Structure formats: C-alpha cells, structure tokens
C-alpha cells in the first residue's frame, strides 16, 4: 500500500516540504512515508473536505462548550415572552464599541388583543462578553457561571433573544446550543454502537464464510429492503412514558444504531474477504500467529482507514434519523432538547408564517450533514490507495 506510485506523486510531497525539492528527494519522502502520512497528504489536497473538517470540529466545540455559549437557561419559560422575534445586536453606541440591544416594550394590539412587542429605542440593554449568568457545571464537573454573552446588571425585564423565542417564551439561541449538544452526541453514540455491531457481524461474516456468512448476508439484505422509518416509529412509540430523559436518550440511540450497522458490516466484510487471501496474512499464519493476533495486529490496521471513512459517512444518517423521530414526537421528548425537538415547533404552518425564526434549527442540521458528507468523501478518497 505504500507503493510510491499510488500516493501523490512528488508534487504533493514537495508542497509538504514548503519548497521545491529535487524530485529524487521528494520521491524518497513518499517511499518512506507511513500509510497515515500518505493519507494525510492526500486528504489535504481535498480542499472541500478540509474545510468541512474544520466545520465539523467547530460544531463539536459547540457540543463541549454549549453551557458557555448559551446565555439563558434553556428550560426557563415565560408565557409573556412567547414568540418574540430575534433581537439584533448593535455593536457600536456613539462611535464606541459598546454592544447593546434595544429593549422590548409590549403593548396590546387594540384589534387582536394580542401582546405585540416592539423595540424601544429609549431602552438600551448592554451586552457584555464573558458575563456571569446562570450556573452550570462545565463538562459536568467544574462549576462555572460565565457565558460568552450576557446582559449587564440584568433586571427581570432585560432580555437578550438573539434568535427569538419559541411558543413557551424560551430563548431559541440557548436552546439551539443545547440541541446541538444532544443531536451531535447522539450521532456519535449511535455510530459507535453500529460500528461495534458492524465490525463484529461483518468480521464474523468475512472471516468464517460459509453458512454463517450466508445467514448474516441475508439478514442484511432483508433489513435493507424494509422501509425502516415505520418500524423505528413502532419501536420508539413503545418506550414507556415514565422513562426519564437519559433512558429515552439511550433507547433512541440504540434504535437508530440498528439502522447504520448494515452498511458498516458490508464494508468490513468486503475488506476481510479481500485481505484474507493476502500473502502477509499467510506469512503471519505460517509464523504461528493466533487468529486474534492476525485480526487485530495485521488485518485491522490495514483497513482501519476505510472503517473511519465509512463511519464518518454513517453519522449524518444517524443525525437525520434522530431529528426525524424527535420531529414526529416519537424520539427524544421535552424536556430533552435536540434539533428534532426544536423543529417540532415549526410543524404548525400558521405559527411558522408568523414566526419564521422557528425554522432556524434547520440550518445547522443542513450544514453539519453536508460537512460530514464532504469530510467522509475526502477520507474515503484518501484511504483508497488506488484512487486517482
């Protein structure tokens, strides 16, 4: 696999060196590079995949720092502030950097008797960075109360709603941060479970062959030819109503991971079948290696890169599944917050027409799925030594 012809020809290596190296030196570098180095060089050439990886990393930073990025308690509801439109931050006041938002004044509409809020230019609410806010435990351990944004000397009526509020008057920005945390972590957890299932079953299938292989292959084919959503809906609907948020979270993770494993198992099996016949496996066998040693020290490293690529491509499907189930009200349920739960509020077209910001959670969903797809494509190309 480390044949110099397969990797990027000298050009890429020269690029790596920063200066134009004589061809022979560059070639030398390619021929002594490890497999991972070759892949990294190749991956770096894929601009879109690189940019996507940065986006994915940013999103996972949001997962880690969700408490910090949110500035109000995502569950604090206030009927008075139902469906407020987003407040724009004005960065400069009288030519000085002094961010503020206009306060909202509520009046009753004389015709519809609904409370209508309008920005009040008299009331300026100062916004500060790293302001103290509600208390939380960073990473579940370290107590903290600082947030990226906050209102100075907050009185009860001084509020900040960057993305508006939902029907219960909860701040959409803060909820979006927590929703990102849930949706992206459930994607990872789901993919780990299906990876485990996929590697186990695909590995057994590819290694043992024969009858077991046939059975597992038929099971995969059957699972792939059944419309899954109605089935998962049925399973999700059976979760007891009195389960708490964590229990539902794990159950939903389990349910969506049942979707993803078939594709991963197919990849693993294909790799096992291809590598089983290789000379280095034969050599290891002749040298007296046990089966476990052959699998884990000889086979797995040689197709690990493919597995990583396939896993990356499986994550978006997980995220879509969770979002869809929660959107239907069968996945995570409030008080849990996920992208699907947030989008559920956008189901009502009348509500949506009046408060279009309820659709905002669909933007991160789209971006993250795109980014994962591009990143996975890049990884797959980079992992394939015979690609162009």
């Amino acid at each position: 696999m480390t044949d110099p012809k397969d990797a990027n020809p000298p050009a890429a290596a020269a690029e790596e060196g920063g200066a134009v190296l004589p061809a022979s030196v560059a070639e030398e570098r390619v021929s002594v590079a490890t497999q991972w180095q070759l892949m990294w060089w190749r991956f770096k050439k894929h601009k879109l995949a690189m940019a996507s990886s940065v986006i994915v990393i940013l999103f996972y930073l949001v997962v880690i720092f969700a408490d910090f990025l949110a500035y109000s308690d995502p569950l604090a509801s206030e009927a008075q502030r139902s469906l407020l439109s987003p407040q724009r931050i004005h960065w400069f006041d009288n030519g000085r950097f002094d961010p503020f938002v206009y306060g909202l004044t509520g009046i009753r509409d004389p015709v519809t008797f609904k409370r209508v809020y309008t920005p009040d230019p008299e009331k300026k609410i100062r916004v500060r960075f790293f302001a103290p806010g509600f208390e939380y435990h960073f990473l579940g351990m370290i107590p903290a109360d600082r947030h990226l944004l906050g209102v100075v000397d907050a009185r009860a009526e001084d509020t900040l709603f960057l993305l508006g509020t939902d029907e219960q008057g909860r701040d959409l920005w803060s909820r979006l941060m927590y929703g990102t945390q849930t949706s992206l972590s459930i994607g990872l957890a789901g993919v780990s479970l299906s990876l485990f299932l996929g590697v186990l079953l695909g590995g057994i299938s590819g290694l043992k062959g024969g009858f077991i292989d046939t059975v597992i292959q038929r099971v995969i084919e059957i699972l792939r030819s059944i419309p899954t959503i109605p089935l998962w809906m049925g399973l999700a609907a059976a979760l007891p109503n009195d389960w708490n948020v964590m229990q539902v979270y794990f159950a939903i993770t389990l349910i969506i991971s049942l979707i993803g494993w078939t594709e991963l198992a197919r990849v693993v099996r294909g790799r096992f079948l291809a590598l089983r016949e290789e000379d280095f496996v034969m050599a290891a066998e002749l040298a007296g290696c046990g089966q476990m040693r052959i699998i884990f020290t000889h086979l797995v490293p040689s197709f690990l890169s493919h597995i990583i690529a396939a896993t990356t491509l499986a994550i978006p499907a997980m995220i879509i599944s969770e979002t869809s189930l929660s959107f239907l009200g069968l996945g995570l349920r409030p008080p849990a917050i996920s992208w699907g739960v947030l989008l559920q509020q956008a189901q009502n077209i009348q509500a949506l027409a009046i408060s279009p910001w309820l659709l905002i959670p669909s933007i991160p969903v789209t971006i993250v799925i795109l980014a994962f797809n591009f990143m996975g494509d890049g990884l797959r190309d980079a992992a394939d030594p015979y690609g162009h």
Partner: protein
Amino acid sequence: MLAYLIRRAFLAILTMWAVSVLSFVVIQLPPGDYITSYIAQMSSSGSFVSQQEAEALREQYGLNKPLYIQYIRWMQMVFQGNFGMALEYGRPVSEVIGDRLWLTMVVSVAAIILTWIVALPIGIYSAVRQYSIGDYIATFVGFIGLAVPSFMLALILMYLGFTLFNANIGGLFSDEFAEAPWSLSKLWDLAKHLPLPALILGLAGTAQLIRIMRANLLDELGKPYVVTARARGLAERHLIVKYPVRVALNPFASTIGYLLPYVVSGSIIVSLVLSLPTVGPLLLKALIAQDMFLAGTIVLLLGIMTVIGTFLSDLVLIWVDPRIRFEGKR
C-alpha cells in the same frame, strides 16, 4: 436466469416473513395487550367490561396462549384479510386504512419515476460535460438534496408557499375531491397535486442517482471502444446514448431496489408535514394512541408492498440486463 429468479423470489418471501415477525413485535411491545387497551377505550367512553367478558375476549383472541400461537393466529387472520379492529375508530383496520395504502404507493412510485426522469439526463450531462458550470450546479444541488432531510425540505417549501403565494401547497386533492368517490376528474386532480410531494421525496434519491450515473458513465467514456467509435466518425450524440449510456444504466437500474424502501420511509414523515392522505399520519396517530393492531398492520402492509415493489424492479432488471438473463446459459 431461472436460478436468479428463484433466488430473488425466495429472498422476497423470506423478507415478507421477517416483516411479519417485526410487525408482530411492534404490536406486542407496548405494555398490556389488545384487551387492556380495549377495556381502557370502553371505560373512557362510559361502558363497562366485566372480568368474565374480558376473559372471554382474551380466549377469543388467544391472548392467553403462548406468543408463537398468538403470532400464528394473527397470521391466519391476516391471510383471511382480517386485520382486527382499530380501537380509536371502532371500525375494522382494513376499512380505516382504505385508500391510504394505495395513495402511499402512488406517491412513492411517482417519486421514483420522477427521480429517474430527472436524474438520467442530468447524470449524462454531468459526465459528458465534466467540470462545466452545469456539472458544478448539478453537483451542488445534488449535495443539497443529500443533506436536507425530506421533511425539512417540505417544511421550507410549505413556508415559502404560504408566505409568498399565500397558498397551501399540501394535500393530494383539492377540497371538492377530498371525500368524493373515484372518478376521472378526481384522478386528474391527484395528478395535478402529485409532482410536488414526489419531487420532495425524490430529491435525495435523485442526488444519489445523478452521482452514480455520472461516475458510471465517466468510467465508460474512457474506455477504448468509445475512442474507437469516435475515431470511426460516429456522431457524438449517437455514440454516447447508444453505447456507454446503456452500459452505465445497468447499475442504475439495480439501485431501484434500495430506493423504494427509502422513499416509502420518507413518505411517512413528508406526508405528515404536507398532510397527505397516506398511511403516514394514520400510523403516527395509531402509535400515539397505542392502537397497536392498526399500527402493526400499517407496518406489515408497507413492508410487504415494498418487498413486492422491489421484486418487480428485479424483474425489470432481468429485462434490462442481458448478463442476468443469460446467466447459467453459457
């Protein structure tokens, strides 16, 4: 060919059996059984079911028997076309489902046909004019199609339709036809409403097919026989459509088997957003009300229809791909 046909038919039957078992699991999963829900339903409407009556009902439905006997009984019922009672509606399940199952299939098949019609020319164009602006646009739209879940696309289009044109773009029929018996004009009304949901449902599949078609055709275009044909002066259009496209089409046809379950799945959620009269909204309501016979039957019938659809697409594949037709004849 016969061996292939038998293998596919066998697999289809096996899949249907698996679907029936899974549907049975869905029915059995919630706590309590059919009679408990029935009693709850009756007492909420003011009637009373005595202990003896409940026992008699359990006996009648075989609910005190072991699970596998219950499964066999349920299968017997299903084969006689009796799917049990839908609790919420107090009517037989088959009556409640009615046209909805067919409409689900109509929407799904329309989505797949539309997918083909759109993906084929765009795929060919993208491959022949590789790296042209059109190719980039197709790739970009394709990626958006892959990334936006269909229900979200439906939501966004609903919103745009509502705010820009003040029109409700949901539904499959105009108001005057919704409850009307089938007639030619109702059919025409359906045909007019069909393209939008079909497009929404088909977009993800279209994106996938464009990519497959483009990749396949690119592989073919580099082959010597294309160069030879060109060197011999064959007209470009003739050359491409007649040879490489035909070869590239084969893997294209086989993806339909995977597309159908995917589209049927998607139709459930999209139907909810667009309020289409398919089984989607019915299934969700049944699941929330724990009306398990209705829910289980919908899962079962959807699965079986999908398996039959996939099998039919396999038959199409035999017709399209001579390699399968002549398998074993050499």
